[in-house]
């Protein structure tokens, strides 16, 4: 692993405890490395804050219009380099430079994207595994993402809904617990509450939803407490969940 990869891994929190402490030790002794780390950190922060701005349609048509009129003027005026044309040449050069810089940022970002995309691909492939423990392992991969990635959440939700093994659905429910602040995740968990049949998965869902005080869960929880075909211990957990949400 070269120095840059190490820095990226460190900033993304992908190092093991040992690698991390070793890296931090080398930071104190190597000022150059430390400076480089700071540069990368700035870059990462910038990437995080950067929003892709698209040129609006009017801007584009204005630009086209300007270009056209400029071309007509150029034709009429002969090919002498006036101050004005110099100025537009400078503007073009500036645009090129800016484009280049942005492009560099993008390649940096794409390195990071590539890594997480590889993880996502890995996760999705293992999700199709025949073996239950293999699929549970795929669910565990989701723990490596610092932030909830859309595709990761979708895969987890899909698994919670459709996996044939209750053991895998349980693992998915527990993995989603980390992301329970997301609206999409809450909706999926609440929905699963009314369709799930496995008692253990139900208890996990009730725990997560009640700890997060998800009010949307109140109705399905109340249904569980009065349903006829539900085991007593699940009704108890549902009661407990209602108490936690409503702070009675």
């Amino acid at each position: 692993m070269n120095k840059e990869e190490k820095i990226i891994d460190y900033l993304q929190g992908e190092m093991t405890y040992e690698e991390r402490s070793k890296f931090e030790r080398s930071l104190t002794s190597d000022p150059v490395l430390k400076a480089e780390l700071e540069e990368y950190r700035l870059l990462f922060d910038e990437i995080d804050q950067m929003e892709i701005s698209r040129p609006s349609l009017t801007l584009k048509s204005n630009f086209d219009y300007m270009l056209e009129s400029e071309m007509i003027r150029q034709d009429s005026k002969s090919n002498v380099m006036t101050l004005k044309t110099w100025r537009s040449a400078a503007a073009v050069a500036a645009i090129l430079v800016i484009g280049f810089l942005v492009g560099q940022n993008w390649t940096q970002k794409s390195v990071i994207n590539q890594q997480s995309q590889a993880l996502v691909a890995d996760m999705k492939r293992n999700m199709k595994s025949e073996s239950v423990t293999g699929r549970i392992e795929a669910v565990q991969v989701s723990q490596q993402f610092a932030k909830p990635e859309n595709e990761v959440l979708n895969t987890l939700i899909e698994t919670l809904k459709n996996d044939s093994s209750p053991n895998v659905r349980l693992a998915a429910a527990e993995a989603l617990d980390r992301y329970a602040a997301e609206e999409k995740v809450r909706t999926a968990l609440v929905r699963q509450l009314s369709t799930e049949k496995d008692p253990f998965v139900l208890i996990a869902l009730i725990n997560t939803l009640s700890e997060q005080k998800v009010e949307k869960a109140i109705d399905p929880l109340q249904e569980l407490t009065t349903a006829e075909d539900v085991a007593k211990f699940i009704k108890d957990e549902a009661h407990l969940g209602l108490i936690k949400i409503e702070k009675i």
Partner: protein
Amino acid sequence: MKYLLTTIGMCIALAIGAQDYNVAHNGGKLILEGVDNAKITSYDGSEVVFSAKIERDEKKSERAKGLKPINSLGLDDNSGIGLSVKKDGDNLKVTQIGECMCDDDEGYTIKLPKSMGVDYSHSTYDSDRLMIEGVTKEIVVSTNYTNVKLKDVTGPMSVKTVYGDIEATFSSVEQNSSVSLNSVYGFVDAAIPAASKAKLSLKTPYGQIYTDFDIDVASTNGMRELSDKKISGTINSGGVDFMIKSGYENIYLRKK
């Protein structure tokens, strides 16, 4: 005296008939649904052997003479010991038909070839224990009330039970796929070799975690998360995912 004992022995053997049922099978999984008090061991052989001491209720069998018990799925007892045994693709699927014909203290004893994994599920009160010994292929267990005992296992496995306790002794920790042991209201006790490599995740919201391993606790930005309810970390510099969770009881992770 000897004669007397033999006579008594013979009488018992007549009253409680021990019966076997064999099926040749290799690879895949042995899927068991609702099989009471099962004791599953792997052995060097190419047949799955089911045995049970059958207790016959004389009155019942008088009325049921010439009839077969069936279940709601339309499966029937094709083994003669109260089990429906069918091939299901690569797997062998076994469903208990109705109440256990077996002696409660004995349950069903099942021997399976080393090439086979186990997928066991049980949802009623009728089975208070499951024992799996020496199985090194994938083990999947899902029960509500059954206590689960695992002996000389290696993983990969996923065990979950609502009310049961889980006790597991590993002969080694296989590194190719995950191990997870989950109980809601029971304790989980796992003994693994001291040199095992694993990435641990131990959780018990209302219980206590006990261990004699040195766990390297994971850190984010140099900060270590220390909690007595939830521990993530590695032993022997990390390895396969090894997850233990109990909702309300203690977790014990010990060196074997």
